């Protein structure tokens, strides 16, 4: 039986499969239909200091092989999460990573500090790449200096693994991957959604109330695999591959490109139980290719020179 354990900084995951932020709520929402122990770690919906009501509807629209969303980071806020949600989550056998948001560098640090003091939080994913908020978010993730500032601040505020989540809306992802590594990140999540716009031609209004949104789903997979491959060659810390994963074969592309773990996002909405299918597919593949450990597959792409 091939080994699926992977190490993300000081955090060990039973398997390299995570539920992506904003696509599994706080974990508890899906616990009655999904066995959370089939998921290596769940990443919470983005959390600020205070609760947010998010954007107006429509917030999600389908596009070819994809999903465009502008939720606007509706959430309960870090304190309510720690007090009300975390106790329920502790009952489940999975790791919990908090997706940290902020409108200022200080807010990122403060959210991180509170999350770190709580019992049952195992890592921090730093969301510097949300395209659907008016302040912060993607602004931090598309400027290497700001990226470095935010990640350094979070680094100082916690002992937990720090995992900045990169925006794909940049010319050269390796610049941002290095900025994160320099700032003391333990791993990198690659990637968040692509900034997109869909228009209702009858009303001539954007199909999303917010206007633009973030594109996710199978449509973006080739772009996310490319960025994972570039980032993995640029830094030594582990890369978590994200983007359009809908099958074990999709996940394998990311591992071969250099990802140490992967996250499933959009597919949680239509296939909440996809994790057991992917795990079975990984085991079948590793066995057939005589690989004893998923870690032996990471970054083994044979790229033509």
């Amino acid at each position: 039986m091939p080994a699926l354990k992977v190490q993300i900084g000081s955090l060990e995951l039973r398997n390299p499969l995570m539920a992506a932020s904003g696509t599994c709520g706080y974990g508890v929402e899906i616990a009655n239909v999904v066995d959370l122990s089939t998921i290596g770690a769940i990443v919470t919906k983005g959390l600020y200091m205070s609760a947010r009501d998010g954007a107006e509807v429509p917030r999600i629209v389908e596009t070819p092989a994809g999903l465009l969303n502008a939720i606007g980071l509706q959430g309960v806020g870090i304190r309510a999460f720690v007090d009300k949600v975390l106790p329920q989550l502790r009952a489940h056998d999975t790791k919990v990573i908090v997706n940290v948001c902020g409108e200022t560098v200080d807010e990122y640090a403060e959210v991180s500090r509170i999350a770190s003091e709580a019992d049952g939080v195992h890592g921090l994913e730093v969301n510097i790449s949300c395209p659907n908020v008016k302040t912060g978010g993607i602004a931090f993730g598309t400027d290497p200096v700001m990226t470095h500032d935010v990640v350094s601040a979070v680094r100082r505020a916690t002992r937990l693994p720090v995992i900045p989540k990169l925006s794909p809306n940049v010319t050269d992802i390796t610049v941002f991957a290095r900025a994160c590594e320099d700032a003391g990140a333990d791993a990198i999540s690659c990637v968040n959604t692509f900034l997109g716009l869909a228009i209702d031609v009858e009303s001539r209004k954007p199909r999303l109330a917010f206007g633009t949104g973030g594109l996710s789903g199978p449509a973006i997979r080739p772009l996310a695999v490319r960025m994972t491959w570039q980032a993995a060659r640029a830094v030594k810390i582990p890369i978590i591959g994200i983007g359009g994963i809908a099958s074990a074969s999709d996940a394998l592309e990311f591992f071969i490109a250099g990802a140490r773990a992967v996250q499933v996002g959009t597919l949680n909405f239509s296939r909440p139980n996809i994790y057991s299918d992917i795990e079975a597919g990984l085991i079948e593949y590793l066995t057939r290719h005589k690989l004893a450990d998923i870690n032996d597959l990471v970054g083994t792409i044979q790229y033509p020179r």
Partner: protein
Amino acid sequence: MPPAADRVCRMVKRESLGGSYSLLTFESPEVSKAQAGQFAMIQPAVHADLTLRRPFSIMDTDPAAGRFSIFLKAIGPGSRAVADLREGESARVLGPLGHGFTPPAADERAFLVGGGYGVAPFALFSRSLNRDRVNSRLFYGGRSAAELPLVEELEKRGMAVTLSTDDGTRGEKGRVTAPLTAALDAEQGKARLYACGPEPMMHAVARIALERKIPCEVSLDPWMGCGLGTCLGCVVKIQEPGESKPKNRPACTEGPVFDSTRVIWGRH
């Protein structure tokens, strides 16, 4: 509420009700325990080239046989994909989901108001009402006779149905609210209202309930992406008593049925 499950289920029976309407029956022990007003997220198991499933109300159930059926109006790719399922083919079914209707008190009379596919949940609701010997009547309205495809199915179930059409091609001519108010005027005892259909209709019924101080529940149908409370795509504006201002709440988990006085209308 009965626990939800995510399963691949066989579609065993398909009846066309003319136009874009059809009745589909699925095998699912879990969903067959659904309560009136609950729904399921459904997509074909193969060639599901759409990113999301689509939500459909549970129209009726057969717990003994472990089956449930939906009343479907094909309006776009997602509903058409489900409508095009051939008998014996499978679909991914997630359900039963959401909060259904609150049963009326023993001394209350239930007035159900339905239109379009929104009449679907009342078939299942009428079963429990009959079981509890609650006196009920359904007011079923549509643009024209062709827009009342479920009448026979409902009457089969022994429901008392009052029909109305905007063009008078069947039942009373005019809006469904006319026969409803008339019946409410005639009503001596306590009444309770339940509405499911186009938003303007539900809003009108909510206003009537407010004027007459009658308790009223409405079943909203915002865009839904997951049915689990995770995508936050289905939020509706709800004013809770204690709270300072209305908040965005996921209709899939806190609804789709809401107390009409809590709903902030015209925002979805």
